[in-house]
């Protein structure tokens, strides 16, 4: 569970929120309306989580002076809020997808799916333990070094069994690094392409969401 713990946490959270939603449904004897107290509250909290999803992660990535935790932790936070926030927005919708609100919901779902894809691509990019992308030059340098070692060991014919085992492992590691180099280039290209879709989608989502919030306040919240 330690691996992908943000997914597990998000799932537990969603289950709990879902349970609460169910209780409210029983109490109100129906689906909580989007304009009702619970509907409003879950929509507001969900939107805040979604804003935090984008804003805080971006700020952390761009910060050069502040070191507020590891990047990998912030990514996990980004994924967690990126799942729970949209889930709450979905509950807020009261399962009605008319007009702009429906479009916002659709964009939210697309963004979440996009996020899943992006996460896959992201983890495919070789990184250090701290989550920093490995540079191709570093990998190639390492491969070169290992090449030298291999040649040296191969030249030492008549060496013991221990040396043979060491040679085998070295070759295996070298193979892995070469794959990583190939993968690094490929995945980086895919991640860049993915960013080109994910970010504009996100901006469109937030723009539409803000317009929706403004309209809701105007037409519903402040309605008298």
């Amino acid at each position, binding site marked *: 569970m330690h691996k992908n713990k943000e997914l597990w946490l998000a799932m537990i959270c969603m289950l709990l929120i879902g349970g609460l939603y169910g209780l409210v449904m029983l109490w109100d004897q129906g689906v909580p309306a989007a304009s009702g107290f619970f509907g409003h509250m879950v929509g507001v909290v969900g939107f805040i989580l979604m804003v935090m999803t984008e804003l805080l992660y971006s700020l952390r*990535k761009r910060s050069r002076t502040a070191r507020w935790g590891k990047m990998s932790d912030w990514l996990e936070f980004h994924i967690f809020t990126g799942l729970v926030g949209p889930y709450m927005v979905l509950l807020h919708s009261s399962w*009605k997808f008319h007009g702009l609100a429906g479009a916002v919901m659709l964009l939210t779902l697309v963004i979440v799916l996009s996020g899943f894809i992006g996460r896959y691509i992201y983890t495919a990019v070789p990184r250090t333990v701290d989550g920093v992308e490995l540079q191709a030059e570093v990998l190639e340098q390492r491969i070169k070094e290992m090449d030298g070692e291999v040649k040296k060991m191969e030249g030492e014919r008549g060496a013991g069994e221990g040396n043979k085992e060491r040679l085998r492992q070295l070759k295996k590691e070298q193979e892995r690094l070469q794959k990583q180099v190939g993968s690094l280039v490929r995945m980086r290209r895919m991640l860049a392409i993915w960013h080109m879709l994910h970010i*504009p*989608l996100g901006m*469109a989502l937030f723009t539409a969401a803000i*317009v929706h919030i403004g309209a809701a306040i105007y037409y519903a919240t402040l309605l008298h």
Partner: protein
Amino acid sequence: MRKRIGCLTNSGIISAILTLIFVIGFVLGQGNLMFSPGELNSKMGVPIGGLVSHAEIGNKCSKCHTAPWESVRMDDRCVQCHVDIASQVQDLSTLHGIFFINNTHLSCRICHPEHGGTVSPQTVMNSINFPHETLGFSLNTHKNDLCQDCHPSSVKSFSQETCSLCHQQRDLKFMQDHNSIFGSNCLACHDGLETYGKCFKHDDFPFKLSGKHKEVLCVECHPGARSKADLQSTLQDCYACHQKDNIHSTGIGISCVDCHTTDGWKPAKFDHNLATFKLEGKHVDVSCDKCHIDGKFQGTPLDCATCHVKDDTHNGSFGSNCGDCHSTNGWKPATFDHSLSSFPLTGKHIGVPCTNCHINNIFKGTSDYCYSCHARNDQHNGQYGKDCGACHSTSGWLPATFNHALSGFPLTGAHLGLACTRCHPNNNFKNASPDCASCHGDPAWHAGSFGTNCSACHSTTNWSANYNGPHPSFGDQGGINHGGASCKDCHTVNLKTATCTKCHDSNNPGD
């Protein structure tokens, strides 16, 4: 150059702008339809304002929705088209009138929601959002019931028989009893909040139930009550219910609570100090019926004799106001002020027991003559009458103060200081002789010469004589006052003999 925040890439900004353009374009082209949370009802009805359904203005939000800064409300927009409702709102005989006149916070959309779809009901009067309490009956205890459970034919009509029919199924016996006592106009008392049902608390009202009142059935205090007004108008004074219990026949007022508590009639706690007759001493422990015969309280005589005539050992001789002499602490000691009688007690009379003078408890009519008590003390044997007080005081027999002048023999001179017994031996007073000779014997000097009337010559002051009676004369020398001589100058032995030799040389006057 420092990188911008991730979302603010060129593509991100462009995307946001395009989204905005799209939204604005849609609004300009299609109206505010994109902001609608659901389609409006498209059921066609009577044309109003040129429209037959709400769906026709689905893209014109401002037809119904007012801006937050406007004073006009959404309900005002409703009645701009639905003018018939506008007039109903002012009419209490209509459903809308009842709703709005007493509940200004109500809004049309509570019962008439929209954006529920083209075929959504235009009126949703389920028990959750329908303000049933504005009609005088809350659905607080009927939340789980459907409208048709109470309004089987139409929600616009209601028969109270419905209440009985349903509640009889729950408890037939109770409903039969309840209806027979309080009638069948359920709404007269029941408001759906159980104010007069299981949530009823008598202590919320001015008359608090306590003691035995808690065990009494409602109908016993509220007979014939058929509405809340009847219940609340029930008289709260004790007598309204307890007149039949009043055993104080002539009555001591009608405020039972002055003496009794709700725990029971007994024990009663009457503060007798509130009455004219204050209970003190032994009166405190006497039971009420000893003085108040046959339950009569007001008008009970206050005089002692009414109760104590049987205790009067004076046989009425002192009147009927026992309190003049006796206190409520007991008959004894009595404090009779003898000075109020015709015989004030003074001196030694004060300490004398009453019975010494008042024989057989006879007080009135007791003789106030000294002799009636002191006859046995009379040492004068009745010689001075029966009025001992003429000479004696109540301080004692002695000293006595007899005025001898009242007798035939006034005391003067040397007689004054004499003890009575000097002249009255053997206490013989009345028959004592006034003659001088009875006390004073004839002195030998002139024995038999002058008789027994000493006062002829002597006074009571001293024995010096002052004789001016017959006496032989001596010529020009006179007789009795011969040359200034006293009797004894010549009569040296006695009056029968005389001698001149005291002054003369011989007894012969010729010498």
